[in-house]
C-alpha cells in the first residue's frame, strides 16, 4: 500500500494456528497515522486473532507486526504503552464500579493520580455513565458495558486504538451512539483499527476496508473502490414467495440482461444500463407474470454484494438478516 512506510499499525504475513485451525494465513495490514481501517469479515474469519496479535495478547506463529514502529513480539510493553484495546467481549471487572474500573486502568497505565481522576471524570461524562458511575458493573446494561469498555481503552489517550466488533449485539440506538463516539474519537487524530461484521458500519466509519475470509484478506480498498469491483447499479426485486423465483427471473430477463437469483433472500437482480423507467417496466412485467413483489428498487452495489462477488456466498446468514435493511436504506437510489 502507498502509506506502508508511515504505517502506525503494520503487519506482514501474519500466521496463526490453533491446533488444526489455520486462523491466519499470512495477512498484511497497514494503517497510516490518523486513519481508520475496518477489517470486515464473517464469524471465524480471523479478525479477533489479528487484533489480539497486534495488541500483544497473542503471539503469531509467523510474520511480523508493529505498533508505532515497535515490534509486538520483542517489545510488547512499549507497544502496550501506546495502544488501547476494546476487545470483542467486555474486559471489565463486574464487582468494581464503573469509576473503579477506569481508575484502576488509568493507574495501571502509570498515569499520575490527578490525571487519572480528571480523565475518569471526563470519560464518565462523555460516555453518559455519570449516574451509574458508582454502581458495580454487574448492574450495567449491555450498551453501558460497551461504553465503559471503550472508555477503559481511552483513559490514557493512546494514539493507537483497536476496537474488536464494537457494536455487535447492540440495539440500533446504542449502535448509532457508538458510531457517533467513534467518529468523534478519530476526528481527534487517533489511528484506529476496527473489526466488524456489519458492512454498513465499515462503510460509515472507515477510510479503508480490508475484507477478511478464512484467515486471508481477500480484498481491500475504500468502500467506493470495492463497490466499483462489482459493477454499476442494479435493479433488485424482492419476491414475496420463494416458489415464484423462477417466474420472476424469467419476467426480469425479458427486460434484457442476465438475472441473478439469491434464493435465501428471495432477491432477483439485473444490471441496469441507464434505461429510463426500468423500475416501472420491471413491476409491470412481474405483475403480468403473476409474481407478488415485496420490494423493488435500483441501488448501488453494497459491500454485501462485494462479498458475494469475491467469495460466491453471503458472509453470514445471520448477519445478512441483521444488516440487509440498513444496507438498503443507505444505498437505495430512489427510482
Amino acid at each position, binding site marked *: 500500500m502507498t502509506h506502508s512506510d508511515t504505517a502506525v499499525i503494520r503487519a506482514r504475513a501474519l500466521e496463526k494456528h490453533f491446533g488444526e485451525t489455520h486462523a491466519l494465513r499470512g495477512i498484511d495490514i497497514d494503517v497510516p497515522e490518523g486513519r481508520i481501517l475496518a477489517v470486515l469479515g464473517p464469524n471465524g474469519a480471523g479478525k479477533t486473532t489479528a487484533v489480539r496479535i497486534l495488541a500483544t495478547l497473542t*503471539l503469531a506463529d*509467523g510474520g511480523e507486526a508493529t505498533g508505532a514502529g515497535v515490534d509486538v513480539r520483542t517489545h510488547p*510493553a512499549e507497544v*502496550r504503552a501506546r495502544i488501547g*484495546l476494546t476487545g470483542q467481549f467486555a474486559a471489565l*471487572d463486574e464487582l468494581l464500579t464503573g469509576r473503579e474500573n477506569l481508575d484502576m486502568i488509568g493507574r495501571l497505565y502509570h498515569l499520575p493520580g490527578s490525571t487519572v481522576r480528571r480523565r475518569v471524570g471526563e470519560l464518565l461524562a462523555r460516555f453518559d455513565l455519570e449516574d451509574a458511575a458508582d454502581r458495580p458493573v454487574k448492574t450495567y446494561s449491555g450498551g453501558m458495558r460497551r461504553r465503559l469498555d471503550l472508555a477503559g481503552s481511552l483513559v490514557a489517550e493512546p494514539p493507537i486504538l483497536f476496537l474488536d466488533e464494537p457494536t455487535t449485539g447492540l440495539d440500533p440506538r446504542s449502535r448509532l451512539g457508538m458510531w457517533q463516539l467513534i467518529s468523534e474519537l478519530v476526528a481527534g487524530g487517533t489511528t484506529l483499527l476496527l473489526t466488524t461484521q456489519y458492512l454498513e458500519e465499515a462503510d460509515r466509519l472507515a477510510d479503508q476496508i480490508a475484507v477478511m475470509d478464512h484467515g486471508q484478506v481477500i480484498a481491500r480498498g475504500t468502500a467506493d473502490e470495492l463497490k466499483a469491483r462489482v459493477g454499476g447499479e442494479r435493479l433488485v426485486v424482492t419476491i414475496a414467495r420463494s416458489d415464484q423465483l423462477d417466474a420472476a427471473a424469467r419476467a426480469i430477463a425479458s427486460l434484457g440482461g442476465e438475472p441473478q437469483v439469491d434464493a435465501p433472500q428471495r432477491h432477483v437482480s439485473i444490471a441496469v444500463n441507464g434505461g429510463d423507467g426500468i423500475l416501472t417496466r420491471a413491476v409491470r412485467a412481474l405483475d403480468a407474470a403473476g409474481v407478488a413483489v415485496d420490494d423493488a428498487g435500483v441501488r448501488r452495489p453494497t459491500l454485501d454484494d462485494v462479498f458475494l462477488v469475491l467469495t460466491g456466498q453471503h458472509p453470514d446468514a445471520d448477519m445478512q438478516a441483521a444488516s440487509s435493511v440498513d444496507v438498503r436504506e443507505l444505498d437505495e437510489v430512489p427510482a
Partner: protein
Amino acid sequence: MTATTRREPAAAGIGTWLSDAWQMVKRNLIHIRRTPELLLDVTISPIMFVLLFSLVFGGAIDVPRDSYINFLMAGIFVQTIAFAGIYTGVLLANDLKNGMIDRFRSLPMSQSSVLTGRTLTDLLRATLAVAIMWLVGMAVGFRPSGGVLGGVGAVGLMLLFGFALSWIGVAMGALVRTPEALQGIIFAAVFPLTFVSSAFVDTATMPDWLEWFANRQPMTLVIDAVRSLTLDGTGGPAAVPAILWSVGILAVCFPLGIWAFNRRTLQ
C-alpha cells in the same frame, strides 16, 4: 519465525511493580468487600474445625502434649493455611475465565503483578484465618505457652508456608483448564497430606511405612515447628527443614507460575 524472548515491562522499576501489585490487591479486597462469602474458607471453616476436632476427638485421641487442644491447634492452623494457599489457584483460574485478564494483558503494567497481587491478597486472607483460629482456640482451652517470640515465629512460618503454597496454586491454576477441576485436585491432594501428617494424631501411632512418609513430608515439618514454637517457644528440629521446604517451593513455583500464566494467556 522462531520464538524470540519477549522483554516484559520495559521501564519496570520497583516502584511501578509495587504500584501495580497494590492495584491488584486493592481490586481483590474490593471483591472481598462486595462478596463476603469469599471469606468463608478462612473464617467459618477453621472455626468449625477447631470446635469439631477439639470437642469431638478431644477425649479420644492420645497425644504427646498436655492437652489435645494444645496439640491440635498447630495442625488446624497449617491445614487452613494450606487449603487457603492452594485455593489461590481456583481464584486465579476464575480470573482467567474472565475477560479482565485480556485487559491487563493490553496494559503497560508489570504482568506478573496480577499473580503477585493475587498471592499477597491471599496472604492477608491467611493472616485473618490465623487470627480467628487463635482466638477461637483460646476460647476452648488453647494455651500457647511459647511466649510472644514463639507466637510471632509460628505465625511468620505459617505465612511463609502459605505464601509458598499459593504459588503452587498459581502454577496449578494456570495449568488446569477449569476452576472446578482444580478444586477436585486440591481435595484429592491436600486432604490426604493433612491427614497423613502430625496434624491430628501422633505419627508414632501410624503403621511404620506410613509413619516414615508422614514424618518426612512438609506438612508435618511445618506443623511440628509451629507446635514447638507456640508451645515451647523454640523451633525444634523441624524448623529449619520447614523453612527450607517453604523457600524451595517458592523457588520452583514462583517462576513456574509466571511461566504457566504467560503460556496460558498468550496462546
